[in-house]
């Protein structure tokens, strides 16, 4: 228990102490809310979709969680490069506990980031459908955060340095975000995109979060929850496996 707690605490302290990173990572969601939210708003309204900000905000919240979580997971590479990883790897604790603490820490930080984006969205005119469902929204946020922290750790455990980072960014994180239905509705999509979205775990996260925050969803929220939970579990297991196999 002590190990999980101290790993969790470390992630929180590091996050809290790097204010520039904290503020910097708000830039992108802010830009999406402003440029896309206000830019596409009129067209979306004309197409009888209703308020685009209401549609978009859950997607942007999910996006900020995706990015923060993936980056925290990928921090394993920094720990490796700056040597701190060795300190944890020679300690008499199971790597599973280290992984769990790390992942919980990364997830906590990411959910916090998501909540900040949520509050910003409120300032831009986002309206919550049913406030009673906010705990459900938090649950979805937490699952998204856990999933991608574990996934980021899994990826980073297989890499020796940051050279693959652009690859991860452009071929993993960006597609996961853009194909998830965060920016556009899933109804009536061309077949290829619909299939891609169906395979994108974030699709279910965005959909569930959108249901919890606005009451509108493409799938049943139970399906969203189920798919997300299963994939999160898988990512956790794979991540732990890869992490426990790290040699230095």
């Amino acid at each position, binding site marked *: 228990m002590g190990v999980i707690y101290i790993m969790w605490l*470390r992630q929180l302290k590091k996050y809290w102490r790097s204010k520039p990173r904290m503020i910097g990572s708000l830039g992108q969601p802010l830009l999406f809310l402003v440029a896309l939210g206000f830019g596409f708003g009129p067209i979306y309204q004309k197409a009888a979709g209703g308020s685009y900000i209401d549609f978009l905000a859950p997607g942007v919240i999910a996006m900020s969680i995706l990015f923060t979580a993936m980056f925290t997971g990928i921090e394993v590479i920094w720990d490796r490069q700056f040597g701190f990883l060795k300190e944890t790897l020679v*300690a008499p604790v199971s790597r599973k506990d280290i992984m769990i603490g790390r992942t919980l820490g990364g997830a906590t930080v990411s959910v916090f980031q998501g909540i900040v984006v949520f509050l910003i969205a409120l300032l831009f005119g986002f309206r919550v459908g049913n406030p009673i469902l906010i705990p459900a929204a938090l649950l979805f946020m937490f699952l998204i955060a856990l999933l991608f922290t574990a996934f980021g750790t899994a990826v980073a455990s297989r890499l020796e340095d940051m050279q693959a980072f652009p690859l991860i960014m452009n071929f993993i994180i960006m597609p996961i975000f853009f194909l998830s239905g965060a920016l556009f509705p899933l109804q009536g999509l061309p077949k290829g995109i619909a299939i891609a979205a169906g395979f994108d775990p974030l699709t279910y996260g965005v959909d569930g979060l959108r249901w919890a925050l606005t009451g509108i969803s493409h799938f049943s929220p139970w399906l969203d929850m189920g798919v997300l939970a299963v994939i999160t579990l898988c990512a956790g297991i794979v991540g732990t496996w890869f992490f426990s196999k790290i040699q230095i």
Partner: protein
Amino acid sequence: MGGETIGPIISVERLTKRFGAFTAVDRISFQVEQGELFAFLGPNGAGKTTTIKMLTTLLRPTEGTLRVDGFDPAHEQNNVRKSFGIVFQDPSLDDELTAYENMEFHAVLYSLPKALRTERILHLLKFVQLADRKDSLVKTFSGGMKRRLEIARGLIHHPRLMFLDEPSLGLDPQTRNHMWEYLKKLNREEHMAVFFTTHYMEEAEKVAGRVAIIDNGKIIDTGTPAELKKKTHSSTLEQAFLSLTGHSMRDEASTGAERMRLHKRMWGR
């Protein structure tokens, strides 16, 4: 069975590590007794750090048997990990935590009870003269301060065996002396064995009870400093070392991780 045995604290037999076609450690055998001060000397790239990594469970050996405190680092990792402390060649602190937090993190990983934790951390910080900086972030520390902090950290859980991979790097003579005095005290009073590498031959000569010299992955000779000097007809250990390993200079080689580190050294980060 390990833990309380009176057998050697480290015993290595025909230990080999290959990275692809490159043999970093080539069938080496040696023993370190309980409570011994043992120096592991060799030029750059000789295989010292690779050996330490295998002994400390960070790398799996390709072949050979090894025992640390009676346990096998490849299979009984947790038992081995409990028995040693280590100061790595490269920094291994978290820059974004304070000195105290780094120490506390370590103490929790080694499950020290809370009261003992605080007491030992403060004591050790005082010993390495960082008590007044305990709440500063490590990234504000100089190289020597980081080194001192790492030494203090490695001692928190009172290991039966301490690995020091070039501990003197970047330390001034005062700190170096101070450090060795303390390590020798722990060696005397708590029977803690020390396994260290260094490029300062006079340090090895002064401190070590026994020395092993490794080059190109092979152990060339072991013995007390006096024995090695006698064998090579040298007046200092440095001369003995040079006559055993030759005068040509070496490159530091070359696992992926090593290459990355070199790259980092060259380009900043």
